């Protein structure tokens, strides 16, 4: 795990800067609802005021439970979604409202790897063709032979060797791990700077996971990549992330370097999340009780701190005042009124 030692003050070191970004999705209403509600519209507060930066060359992890907004945040960063409010900068450029050709040009530099490679690959397209397809769009000047060569090179790089053999294979003819390698190859063929990896190894078996993590680490070094790694699995995050942000109900509750976060979690939610992760050692079974209830409805999120209805430390202040992210330790910010007691 190489920890990035870039000074935070130089804005040029940040590949991505996200400031106060919100994404609200309107709740679909039936005809009757519309008549009765008379102009009232509910929103799902999927992402509700999130700020962070992704430093060049790092793996920034976003972790949280389902419904925390981590995937939506990822989609906002690569502009698959347009924010409701806030700004997003990529490599110094404001991309918050970019559209059309400008957005397409940007896409060459940011690629996505999803959880299910079978759903990401066209079942009727040979792997080599699928990998070269991105170049057709982003590098139309290349000849067919050049494109073929680049796809072959990329297949070798992701360990699908001999590449000539895999070039003509279809997704159903190869294993799940090999499919995910093909998806990685397709993402890298346009030479992106940022990879959004949304649960890229969640479906793989443990032995395959280790290989994919290793591949992602190795490619990151080779291609100078920056990853936004979205995961619900904090144990997996340990093997790839440099820094981690914990999300809860549309808010970022804590951000720190990985070892710092795992050894000194300051937010009660982060503490619960870390304690809940099962450890493969029967001598170290969990003894802590888990917080009450489950993640609330994002249409009407709780006022104040969103975790307060489940929080063992909650006071009156927590029900009223939404805690801002505060830097309480070096390179470690947390959004909790009571975090001081864990310092």
């Amino acid at each position: 795990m190489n920890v990035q030692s870039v000074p935070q003050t130089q804005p040029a070191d940040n590949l991505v800067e996200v400031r106060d970004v919100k994404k609200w999705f309107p709740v679909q209403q039936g005809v009757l609802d519309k008549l009765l509600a008379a102009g009232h519209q509910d929103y799902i507060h999927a992402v509700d005021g999130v700020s962070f930066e992704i430093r060049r060359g790092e793996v920034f992890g976003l972790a949280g439970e389902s419904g925390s907004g981590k995937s939506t945040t990822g989609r906002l960063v690569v502009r698959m979604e347009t924010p409701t409010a806030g700004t997003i900068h990529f490599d110094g450029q404001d991309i918050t409202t970019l559209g059309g050709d400008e957005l397409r040009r940007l896409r060459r530099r940011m690629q996505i790897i999803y959880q299910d490679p079978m759903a990401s690959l066209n079942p009727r397209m040979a792997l080599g063709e699928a990998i070269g397809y991105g170049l057709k769009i982003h590098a139309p000047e290349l000849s067919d032979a050049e494109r073929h060569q680049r796809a072959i090179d990329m297949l070798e790089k992701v360990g699908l060797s001999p590449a000539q053999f895999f070039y003509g294979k279809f997704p159903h003819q190869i294993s799940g791990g090999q499919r995910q390698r093909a998806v990685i190859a397709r993402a890298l063929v346009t030479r992106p700077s940022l990879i959004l990896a949304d649960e890229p190894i969640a479906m793989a078996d443990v032995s395959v996971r280790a290989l994919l993590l290793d591949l992602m680490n190795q490619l990151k070094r080779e291609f100078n990549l920056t990853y936004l790694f979205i995961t619900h699995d904090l144990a997996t995050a340990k093997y790839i992330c440099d820094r981690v942000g914990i999300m809860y109900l549309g808010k970022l509750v804590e951000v720190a370097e990985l070892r710092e976060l795992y050894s000194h979690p300051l937010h009660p939610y982060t503490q619960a999340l870390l304690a809940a992760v099962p450890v493969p050692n029967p001598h170290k079974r969990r003894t802590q009780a888990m917080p009450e209830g489950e993640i609330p409805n994002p249409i009407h999120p709780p006022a104040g701190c969103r975790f307060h209805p489940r929080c063992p430390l909650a006071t009156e202040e927590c029900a009223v005042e939404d805690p801002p992210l505060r830097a309480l330790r070096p390179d470690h910010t947390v959004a909790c009124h009571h975090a001081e007691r864990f310092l």
Partner: protein
Amino acid sequence: MTTTTADKEVLIQVRDFSLIYKTRLGPLSAVDHVSFDLYKGEIVGLVGESGCGKSTLGKALLRMAPPQAELTGQILFQGQNILQFDDDQLRDFRGRCVSMIFQDPMTSLNPVQRVDQHLIEAIQVHEPRTPVAAALERARALIGRLSIQERRLKDYPHQLSGGMRQRVMIGLGLVLNANLIIADEATTSLDVIVEAKLLDQFRELRDELGITVLMITHNIALVAEVADRIAVMYAGQMAEIGSVYEVFDAPRHPYTQGLLASVPTISLDERAELFKMGGEPPNLTHPPQGCRFHPRCPQALPICAQREPALQPVAGDHLVHCWLYQTHASQGAS
């Protein structure tokens, strides 16, 4: 660790059980000559990678198998071979003795039936003479035990959270006093905190009601967290079985060793790199000769490619299916 299996009551005995799927590509040996016991009041984790036969084996314990599958061997429940049950015996066995929970509770629950209707139906199917009021009373008592509020009985499945739906599924099993719950990836789609609470629930059921839980999962850390024993399957065969303490502390089968070393762990003091196991599981229409793991095994002996080892004890009730621990091995090696 402290209790030995000798003083425990056997609930299910699986003896030399095989399941072969007839496919267009020929017979596929999904479960191959597996033998093991399940005791009363224990939690056993059945682990392995996709396609190792763990789900097939779990379903087979309820005799759920597609018609084109060929089942041989014995599955004895209280001395009776369930493979020979007729339809009535089987229906009774499935509800009252064993129940199963799957990964996605939404596909197991009826979306247009309320929770109380589910529970009452389950009771009345098996005990037709039970009046509704009595059935409802049992449902109420049960739901409280599973930490679901009573008003939730009037909810439809879509109104419940994922964790609550799984609790209702557990409830459907318990309402008839089943003594074995087979949980097939039952916590996989849940978030860690909800999952942790469900594990606590399994532990409680075992401690208070003496329920046996067979937890089928790909998540080995879960097994360390909650199970008494662990059974590791590879390519349709039982590779290793023993108490979680013995197996996690000193895994014997090279596959178990590799598997455990490739499990991510959150503790910072442990190794920074995961073990990377070479190769892939075999195609079960043409499994390798001898030990099915030998083509991937870093410690393979000449005999491993020729003859299959037996599942034999290495210590107490810790059994391993590997030539490294059997007498033939030394002869074959030298």
